[in-house]
């Protein structure tokens, strides 16, 4: 074998050693390659932890001998003379027989790796006679010994990493179980979906809200879960959420696939991956149908109570019967003209119904006296605004009805009563009722005067616009009558 040929073999074996990262794969590949190169049919790796004088060890790797393969990893006796520091071609068949338990091996090439590992190649006849063993194998074996150490370190590192990973997985699993239990226990419907809107998961409350099994929701798009109009609204909201990255909260009436209507507060936010990219959307529905029902019930009760108070007023002064209803109608019309929302209009209407409730404390003969009131009587009547406030202030309205009643005779210039408030100090609702109250009074008969015509009444409003009445409110009232042909309820009935 010339130098080039020898180098070719060394090069090939060295590359084989450098390719593997686990001890088992390294030993397998190296022994395979040694068999490939030497033609020996059998290769063993003996582990002898007690050193080179050990009399027992185990076979870490066996290739090519089926019988010895059955003994791999089991203890095996190592006859004296088998192990040694040097590379040696062993031709003592009896020694090999004591070691393998077989009489067919007449050649064993001993390749010691380190103090505790030896490779042994076996063959039925002498091999490699032409090869300078002492030159070929030492650098390979030294390399292999180092590679085994590196592989062991690498395996230990992998074991440690795996242990850490397992620990993390246990913690993650625990956290996931806790989160799942939390989600399951929540009465609030919770879902999460990917950035494209596809549902990734949800809790049983969400499943009940939607009316679909959890496994039928996961993987679906909103249009496969919700009615079309809701689905497109949700999809649009999702797009806005992703664009703005700001949490959203809405109040919706939702309709499930089964057609059931439900009042909900709907909150949505984004969740992010480890690179802070948007990973998806998490959201919750809070069913507020019960609360809405209770609110409606309370509202109805208030309306009934107010209607009852209003009726009591009617019985005290028949000449002003229907005044509150008409003021309320006009006030709401003015409020709507001014662009107030429905909730505020509702409060305005109710306030108008009870704005004069304080008159209940004024002797009815004063209220029904068919002449102009003298100064003392008028001072007495002026007390009704204060009285209205006193009666209403302890009732928990969702609107400032007591304050509105208190302020409905205040003038813009501070000349009104009872407290002489001015301008913006007076609630808008009070300013509206002030106009509606005056307008209704001017358009109605009183025991002490005839009703004014509509034009005359409107002229009065115009005259006191800014001083007594809020100009914007007067303008709205004028528009109603002049442009929209508004008529008070009695007139409507007559018409």
């Amino acid at each position: 074998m010339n130098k080039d040929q020898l180098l070719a073999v060394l090069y090939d074996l060295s590359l084989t050693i450098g390719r593997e990262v686990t001890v088992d794969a390294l030993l397998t590949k190296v022994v395979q390659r040694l068999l490939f190169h030497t033609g020996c049919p059998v290769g063993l790796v003996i582990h002898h932890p007690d050193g080179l004088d050990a009399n027992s060890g185990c076979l870490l790797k066996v290739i090519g001998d089926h019988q010895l393969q059955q003994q791999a990893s089991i203890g095996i006796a190592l006859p004296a003379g088998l192990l040694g520091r040097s590379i040696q071609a062993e031709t003592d068949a009896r020694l090999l027989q004591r070691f393998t338990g077989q009489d067919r091996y007449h050649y064993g090439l001993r390749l010691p790796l380190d103090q505790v590992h030896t490779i042994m190649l076996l063959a039925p006849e002498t091999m490699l006679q032409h090869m300078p063993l002492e030159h070929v194998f030492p650098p390979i074996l030294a390399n292999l010994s180092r590679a085994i150490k590196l592989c062991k370190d690498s395996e230990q590192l992998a074991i440690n990493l795996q242990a850490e990973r397992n620990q993390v997985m246990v913690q993650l699993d625990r956290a996931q179980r806790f989160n799942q239990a939390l989600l399951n226990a929540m009465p609030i419907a919770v879902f999460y979906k990917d950035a494209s809107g596809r549902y990734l998961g949800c809790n049983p409350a969400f499943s009940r809200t939607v009316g679909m099994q959890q496994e039928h929701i996961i993987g679906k798009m909103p249009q496969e879960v919700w009615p079309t109009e809701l689905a497109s609204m949700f999809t649009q909201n999702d797009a806005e959420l992703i664009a703005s990255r700001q949490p959203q909260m809405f109040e919706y009436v939702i309709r499930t696939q089964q057609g059931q209507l439900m009042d909900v507060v709907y909150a949505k936010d984004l969740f992010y991956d480890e690179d802070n990219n948007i990973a998806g959307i998490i959201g919750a529905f809070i069913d507020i149908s019960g609360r809405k029902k209770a609110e409606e019930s309370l509202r109805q009760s208030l309306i009934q109570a107010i209607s009852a108070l209003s009726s009591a007023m009617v019985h005290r002064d028949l000449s002003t019967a229907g005044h509150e209803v008409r003021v309320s109608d006009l006030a709401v019309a003015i409020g709507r003209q001014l662009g107030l929302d429905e909730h505020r209009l509702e409060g305005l209407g109710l306030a108008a119904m009870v704005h004069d409730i304080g008159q209940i404390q004024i002797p009815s003969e004063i209220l029904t006296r068919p002449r102009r009131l003298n100064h003392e009587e008028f001072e007495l009547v002026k007390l009704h605004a204060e009285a209205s406030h006193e009666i209403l202030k302890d009732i928990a309205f969702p609107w400032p009805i007591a304050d509105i009643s208190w302020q409905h005779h205040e003038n813009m210039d501070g000349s009104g009563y009872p407290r002489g408030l001015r301008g913006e100090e007076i609630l808008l609702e009070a300013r509206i009722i002030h106009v509606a109250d005056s307008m209704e009074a001017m358009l109605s008969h009183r025991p002490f005067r005839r009703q004014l015509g509509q034009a005359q009444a409107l002229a009065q409003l115009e005259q006191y616009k800014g001083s007594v009445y809020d100009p914007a409110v007067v303008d709205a009232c004028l528009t109603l009558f002049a442009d929209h042909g508004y008529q008070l309820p009695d007139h409507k009935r007559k018409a």
Partner: protein
Amino acid sequence: MPSPWHSSLDPAQLASSLQAWHAHHPDQRLLALLAEADREQLPNLQTACLHQGIELAGGVFPRLISNQGFVDHGVMLLPCPGGSQSALLRIHTGQDPAQTAQHMSERITQMLAAWPTDQGKPTLFMIFDGMLPDIASILDALYLQLADQVFYGGVNAGSAQFQPIPCLFDQYQSMMHGVLCLLLPATANPVINHGYPAPEHTLTATATVGNRIFQIDWRPAFDAYQHIVKQQFGAELNRENFYTFGVHFPLGIMLANQQLLIRVPVALEDDGSVFCVGEVPENAVLMMVQAPTVPGDDCVQQVLGTLQQRHGSLEGKNLLSFYCAGRSQHFGPAALEEIHGLIRHSQAASVTGALTLGEIGSPHEWGYPLFHNACITASVWMDA
């Protein structure tokens, strides 16, 4: 009827000869070596065997070998000895060699369980589809599994043009990308030799995948190969004459025991990579080999000598012999001299075989199985 025998694929002739043979050997199966030129007529053979209830296994080869030399047509039919078994296994493209070996090993272990113990250790004779790129790795992995429970031998079937064809078959089917595993008596363990001398100079295959070499000495494979052929042998190599030159200037992998494994480059890919018959280990140190100009007697004599050492006189025996198609291409008409030498020197009753696209064996009866090119193999074929 001589055994083994050559037959045409004429349905009538097949039916007649098979019926006559089967009447006397009802429990034997047949190994068939089918000439590529007649592969379209394989169904005739399969149909005839199915009708007679004969178990069939075989492969398609570029040419056949008989006592008359090379035969381009027909089929060589070899009655398998009692106890023989076969399994035709598919190998999925891209499957890891270790998985393939595991699959083969499981099937062969089943076959070993049914092997008659009084026949001693059997030979596992494998016929692979020659287009498989990783046969050497499959052999390495298979040896890990089966170890010394069998002797190892085999050949590659396929087309002389190295085109994929369904080259393996039994009586029911034919397939490509597979292996035919035959469990035969120990005498089927082939002796293998090529007789090519080891060269002095080496070169490094720096990038290989399976049986394709992308770089040699860190240069595009074909450029480097072309340059070396020109430098060492003065031959002008180009894409057109690549195949005809490749067989004359094969590559060699040098082993520590001074064996030289030959790899014949047979095709040039569009990307300049060189396609070999047989796997080339990654970063293998290759040698440019100049094949001997004339075959001589040495190789045949060595094969027969080893065969005689194992089995005694070969006189009157039937020999199964395979001859590498690349070797045949290289020697041209002189290849026939080697076949005639084999017949003459062995004094065998018959020599039956085929041209192959790769050979599997070991220089020793008990040796590590290696994949070769450019070899002659021979074994004693026992038919009873």
